[in-house]
């Protein structure tokens, strides 16, 4: 299994509307479509062709809709912006409109709670409207703002950047790394995970050297190969490369995992693997 095989898997799994479902023959969804555009572009395919479906993706008031129904997913919109940026594509509503919409939405603020030790008032991004902010959507959206906004930097509200960073710092686990949500619950310290830690490190790459970043990076270096999945290993490799750390072991683990990834056939996971394997040491991630 190599990058050519993964590319062929993705191309074969593409829907007639130019998008990708999570699995073959399923309705096109934003997350796998965005990952596929990122991956095929990184693998040398024509970005405009790969991203045609994403460029025409249905949107309302700047928020990308799920073709399968349901509310807009903010985390996936952050990922979609990264894909449009990587493929040098403009969404039909305008990438600036998507960024503006992403700035307008936020997770709800909560009162302090006795069930855990954290600042529930910080507003990052939730997965969907009217819910609490979580690490993953906040990290994807922060990464999107930092990566895609430079031409419009003056229009980006620095409070959103600051609050997103505050939230990620606030949610870091004792000893380093990030769980998907809280660092503690009902008096128990919760464990950090590889993919959420890697993603958060990518989102906080402008704050390298700070304690939580250093601790998170140490956790990731120790545990990068401990979670066997293409997504976890791919994100871990991207984060380690971004921070100038060795990736040979995690890339080898990713290659070993590929038969399972391909057999399960999840397009987002296949694309995450292809994206990472297609990048050279000097390439910027996202």
């Amino acid at each position, binding site marked *: 299994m190599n990058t050519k095989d993964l590319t062929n898997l993705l191309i074969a799994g593409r829907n007639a509307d130019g998008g990708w479902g999570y699995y073959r023959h399923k*309705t096109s969804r934003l997350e796998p479509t965005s990952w596929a555009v990122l991956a095929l572009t990184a693998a040398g395919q024509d970005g405009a062709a790969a991203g045609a479906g994403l460029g025409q993706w249905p949107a309302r008031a700047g928020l990308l809709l799920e073709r399968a*129904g349901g509310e807009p997913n903010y985390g996936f919109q952050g990922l979609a912006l990264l894909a449009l940026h990587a493929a040098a594509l403009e969404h039909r509503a305008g990438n600036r409109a998507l960024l503006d919409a992403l700035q307008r939405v936020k997770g709800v603020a909560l009162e302090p709670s006795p069930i855990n030790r954290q600042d529930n008032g910080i507003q990052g991004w939730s997965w969907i409207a009217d819910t609490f902010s979580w690490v993953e959507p906040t990290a994807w959206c922060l990464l999107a703002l930092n990566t895609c906004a430079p031409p419009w930097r003056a229009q980006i509200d620095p409070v959103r950047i600051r609050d997103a960073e505050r939230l990620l710092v606030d949610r870091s686990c004792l000893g380093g790394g990030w769980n998907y949500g809280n660092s503690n619950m009902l008096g128990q310290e919760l464990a950090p995970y590889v993919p959420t830690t890697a993603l958060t490190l990518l989102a906080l790459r402008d704050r390298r050297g700070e304690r939580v970043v250093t601790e998170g990076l140490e956790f990731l270096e120790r545990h990068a190969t401990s*979670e066997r999945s293409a997504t976890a290993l791919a994100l871990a490799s991207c984060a380690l490369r971004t921070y100038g750390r060795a990736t040979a072991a995690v890339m080898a683990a990713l290659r070993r995992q590929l038969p399972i990834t391909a057999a399960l056939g999840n397009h987002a996971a296949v694309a995450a693997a292809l994206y990472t394997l297609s990048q050279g040491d000097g390439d910027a991630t996202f």
Partner: protein
Amino acid sequence: MATRRSDLPLHHRQWSRRAFLAAISTSVVAAACRRAPYDASLFARPERSPVGLYAARDYTIDFKELIGRGLEDLHVDVRGRRVFLKPNMVEYESNSAINTNPLVVAGAVLAFRAAGAASVTVGEGPGHRRDMEYLVTETGLYEHLRENRIAFVDLNQDDVAEVPLRSRFTGLERLALPIELLQSDFIVSMPKLKTHHWAGITASMKNLFGTVPGAVYGWPKNILHRHGIDNSIIDLNATIRPHFAIVDAVIAMEGDGPIMGRPRQLGCVVMGSDLVAVDATSARMIGLDPTQIPYLSEAGRFLGHVDPRRIELRGERLARFATEFDVLDRFKSIRLRRS
């Protein structure tokens, strides 16, 4: 996890045990009092519900044979039917008892195939971890999927269809549910038996949280917590109406479940078509009074039987497995008083 404070189930906001129990009971009952939350004519129950208890000393036994025996004892006919198995896969930690053991899942697949099922599909949609490839790889389930050519569906990411809810404890009218689940015609809930720090116990009914698609509702499926865990459990079960349950209680979890608790050997598999009766029996087995567990108590009014006089035990006697699980302090008052 965290949710909007006003969205939290009542028991998140009440900390004395008495207040907690009173509040959570009120939350279910209040929903029932506002208007009829279900049409009783849609929920015919048998006079008595058979529940099978089968000894499994550890995971080396032949689960195809054991589950096949249960299907026969309980007169389950799946010939020509599309069977969907929903195990409980939440998180992976070695030597933990968080997930339904893959050997039980694989045994069930083989047993249903041998019983004449047209197809058997396995699917799960974790509310905690959303990386399904990680879970099926690390738990070892992938090897069984591969060896036995078993179809697997990530319920978080499947295509969905909106369905009307058949009861309204949550106040919700509709929910999007996975197509693969809806298109099957014999749904089997296959949980791990665990204590649960919000719901008291998690078994076949609570296991249905994993059918709600995260790609539509986000993680950790806040919509269910916002409308009350007990209410959501009842509405999901009333709507999906699983046909059968197989509870992995070979090694269960006590203490601070469903993730942080300790493994506890019970050596049992519980099976039955009435999920309320299966879970009520499982609760009694670990020393908890199901009538004091709000969602079981309420479900016992229309979905199935909690009353032991309405439950017909088959296989082993309950006394063989009956024990007292360690529970969090706030659940100690709902311990069964054994005579």
